[in-house]
């Protein structure tokens, strides 16, 4: 006989995940949740974002990138494996408020595998003006969908609204060859 469940108990199905292969080990990004990728410059946050977009578009899904600072490099994204024809790219010219509204519109439209909100390098003053309710709104918008909302930033922004927070430590550059004939190859 099954034990009685306490009042208010809810059976939550574990969320589906999108597995992303990454040089520092694979990552599973839960669908229908907010995931944060946090790190300083050259920590690998953009590499991880590209890997996530490549995993999504490689499965035949459509993805959207809200590029707050016009920093996206299609060339390195294509080299990572991102199918550019399946990627909607929104350039916001360094303005955070239109970026947040664009992300909201894309989440409400639905049908995307990944909606990436790139807030890295955004001005701290603009980031401080993001109301906490925006993240709750995003969480409600994605929780019944298979969409992953990936937020890339210098520091945690979504806080408790994010199910997964990937904090990337600073990396050490790997140059090959002998001085003065060095070649930048990777960062570990």
């Amino acid at each position: 006989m099954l034990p009685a469940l306490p009042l208010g108990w809810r059976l939550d199905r574990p969320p589906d995940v999108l597995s992303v292969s990454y040089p520092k080990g694979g990552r599973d990004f839960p669908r229908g949740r907010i995931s944060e990728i946090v790190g300083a410059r050259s920590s690998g946050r953009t590499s991880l974002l590209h890997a996530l977009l490549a995993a999504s578009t490689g499965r035949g899904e459509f993805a959207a990138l809200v590029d707050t600072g016009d920093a996206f490099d299609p060339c390195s994204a294509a080299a990572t494996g991102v199918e550019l024809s399946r990627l909607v790219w929104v350039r916001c010219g360094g303005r955070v408020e239109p970026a947040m509204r664009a992300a909201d519109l894309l989440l409400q439209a639905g049908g995307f595998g990944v909606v990436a909100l790139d807030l890295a390098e955004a001005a701290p003053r603009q980031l401080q003006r993001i109301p906490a309710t925006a993240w709750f709104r995003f969480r409600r918008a994605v929780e019944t969908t298979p969409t992953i909302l990936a937020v890339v930033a210098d520091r945690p922004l979504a806080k408790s609204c994010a199910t997964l927070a990937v904090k990337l430590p600073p990396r050490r550059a790997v140059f090959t060859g002998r001085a003065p004939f060095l070649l930048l190859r990777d960062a570990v």
Partner: protein
Amino acid sequence: MFACIHSAEAAALASSFSPWVESAGPNTAVFSLTPRQLAERHWERITSNCPASAPPVQVAVASTVEAAILAAHNLAGCTFIAPDEEMRVLGPLSIDCLAGVSLWGSLPSCAPVGGALWARRSGRVNNPPQAASLPHIELFGILDRWGIHTLADLARLPEADLAARLGERGVELHRLARGALDRPLRPEIPAATYEESAEFDHPIELREPLLFVIARFLHDLIARMRAQSLAAQAVHLALDQQKRTLGLPFPTLDLKLLTKLIEHSLERQPPEAPVERVYVALQPTRPRRVQHGLFTPAAPEPERLELTLGKIRALVGEGNVGYPELFDTHRPGAGKPIACQGALLPALAFRYFRPPLEARVELEAGVPKHLTTKMFRGRVVQIAGPWRSSGDWWRPDFWSRDEWDLRIDGGALYRLYRDRAAQQWFVEGVYD
């Protein structure tokens, strides 16, 4: 019942009877008769009203299109063929009449073998018709050897045996000779234009009343398109002298979607003055047919996505929404990743500073040792380079530069370059 007119003025005469006219040749027109036209024998007026000096007009009415064409081509005056009497009327005709008429448009024409045979049989040695107008010419040679000279002779042959010997083409010829080859009329539908316009006594200043008028036009145009099984590929809108075109990524007949798209367009680019004249036109195309797969990943609904992108364009600007595209060039930041250089590319993503950051660089023996920008500064700890590249020297925006990959003491990896033309240093972006 179908009527066929064979005359120099066939198209004009036929169009006076029906708007749906099929052209079966340069001087032949076929149309369908209404019950009233049939009961009152309207077609007889064509020959009776024809002046004596005018070229002769041959008219035939039959229950099938092909029988009417055959009779109009070969029988003078006005001919009425009642149903099941095709053989009685058409039977005495020579089998050559089948070759001279451009019938069987749906069937492939044969190779021009037997042209001399046809010329011998038809007696047109000096003026043989073009090979394209001689379908089944080899069949005529076979029928000639069989002693088949009239349509009645051909019609008397057993269809099954004819099929066994001559195949599908022989059966078609047999049915044609019997007047039993039936097909629907293929009228030439004139290209319709889907446009509406209006001029107002008082100019419209507000957006909502203007949208109300445009939505009413769209409603009528969409109804007309739906009746013709067409869909809109683009919307052309003219407000006074200000013209704009909204290209749709997919054909649609969704009134709400089209109205919303026009509303977003008017929000982004409002009319410069109160509007006195409105012109709306829809560009027709075939409707969209999509086959969904059971295991296909979910994708955004096209209508909803287009509306969403329209709203985002209003937020961030027209040219800032789309999908990235790589050009076939070596220009930094725009070209395709070159496969042969794949092994040389760093296994790091790159982030651009757009526009590139101006930098002040301290050199030591020609190598950067200290870097200062408005965003960061630091001592160069590791550096690789320079990599010299240039291109597009024949264009005003040619590029020529020396690149370095460097790490400063803060730990970040940057791409620094010196513009050789401007003799200026820039930080292009950061490896991340």
